[in-house]
């Protein structure tokens, strides 16, 4: 789409804040202000969502394979965000099981893999950060 979706969405959010919110009061003003902030988040997420999900799914598959769990990628990847999110949910559920199992072990391999799981979880949080978040 032209103009680009993030640019158009960001402009729309700013227009809502500058032109519509001041015309409203109370509950309605708050709803429109939150709506404009959500449009900003959509703008931020639109361009990066598929890339971050693809990157994260690859990273989690590698961790699961190191943990001895089957984690084959689809032979023909579906790059729609909804499909990548569904795969992400499946992989993250398996990651929870892997991490819980690692925590019951007391050996260097388990500790190393657990540390790498945490490194990937930290990277995933940084990939998902919202510019407007408090933290």
């Amino acid at each position, binding site marked *: 789409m032209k103009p680009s979706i993030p640019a158009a969405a960001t402009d729309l959010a700013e227009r809502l804040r500058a032109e519509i919110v001041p015309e409203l009061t*109370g*509950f309605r*003003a*708050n*709803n429109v202000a*939150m*709506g404009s*902030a*959500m449009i900003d*988040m959509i703008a931020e997420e639109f361009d990066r969502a598929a890339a971050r999900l693809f990157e994260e799914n690859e990273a989690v598959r590698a961790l699961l394979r190191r943990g001895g769990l089957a984690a084959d990628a689809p032979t023909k990847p579906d790059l729609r965000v909804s499909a990548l999110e569904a795969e992400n*949910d499946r992989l*993250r*559920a398996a*990651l*929870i099981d892997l*991490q*819980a199992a690692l*925590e019951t072990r007391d050996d260097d391999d388990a500790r190393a893999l657990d540390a790498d*799981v*945490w*490194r990937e*979880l*930290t990277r995933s*949080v940084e990939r*998902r*950060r*919202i510019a*407007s*978040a*408090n*933290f």
Partner: protein
Amino acid sequence: MKALTEADMTAYLAARFPDWRDVRIDGLHRLPLGASRETYRFDLSYSDGDGAHSDRLILRRDPPVSNVDSDRNHEYSAYRAIHGHGIPVPRMILLEEDPGPMGGAISIAEDLRGYHNSEYQLQQPAWRDKLPHIAAQMWGAMGRLAAVPVENLDLEFMVPATREGTAMQELDFWEATLDKNDVGPEPITRAAIRWLRRNPPPPAQKLAMVHGDFRAGNFLYDDSGTLIAVLDWEMAHRGDPLEDLAWSLARVFSFGKDDRRSGIAPREEAIRIWEAASGLTADPAALHWWELLNCVKGQGIWNSCAQAWTTTSGEREVIHAYAAWWLRNAQDRAILELMGHL
């Protein structure tokens, strides 16, 4: 959900109080307060055997689906329990638990008008010099709440708790909330839950009435920054007073997007004020446990927001989707920091 109207309110109050005459409702409108309940402001006038009366009132209504597992009776009883014990709160006036007349259970309270509650306003330059006073007010009131002898309060409506059991009771509750409102796997939050179970805190120094959501945004303050009333008691419960302190220190409530907690004061200053006012000690390890527990609690609430938005059969609340989008990843990031992975 059916919108509240002045005509409905008038008819309800006239039926509930047959001695009242000339019942009139003016200026009924919804306030932008919170994600879990609907809050309305209105003016009431009526006459009875004592003459003419007029009141400024606040009405809270339970929605069909909420992000917080509470109800009108619980919050109404919590306000009544703490009223008169040194923590300023609005006076409760009426409870209607039958959802029929008003489309949901309601409570009505006095409206303390002309004050502020915005947590964002406190980030404006005009308020910067008042923040130390506001910090003393906020964490001072929280400390005084912790000091109130729990045996002096009528808390029979609350779930029982013990000094030894409250930590795991809260963890069980919030893990169950996450299970009930599953919106996808949460490896970071689930790892935090396992850590909390492996590393239980010491028994609470005392049992207290825990507010459950004591932070900037949930108290009224005047132009000088003096605290006028503590609001939003729907999650109040018996428990470890460190829970309130820990909740107020949460990174997700750092509205200044810096190290000031609740956007008001540095962590160490908040703890110092709370300790002085409560007469209790914030043991660092125990406080850390409650801060992490509160991350689980927060994620439970934000996920409940997402679930409420997704499953409601009525009108969706914008704040449910907004809160989930805005807070879930920040909450994960706070967990990473507390667990030493950031």
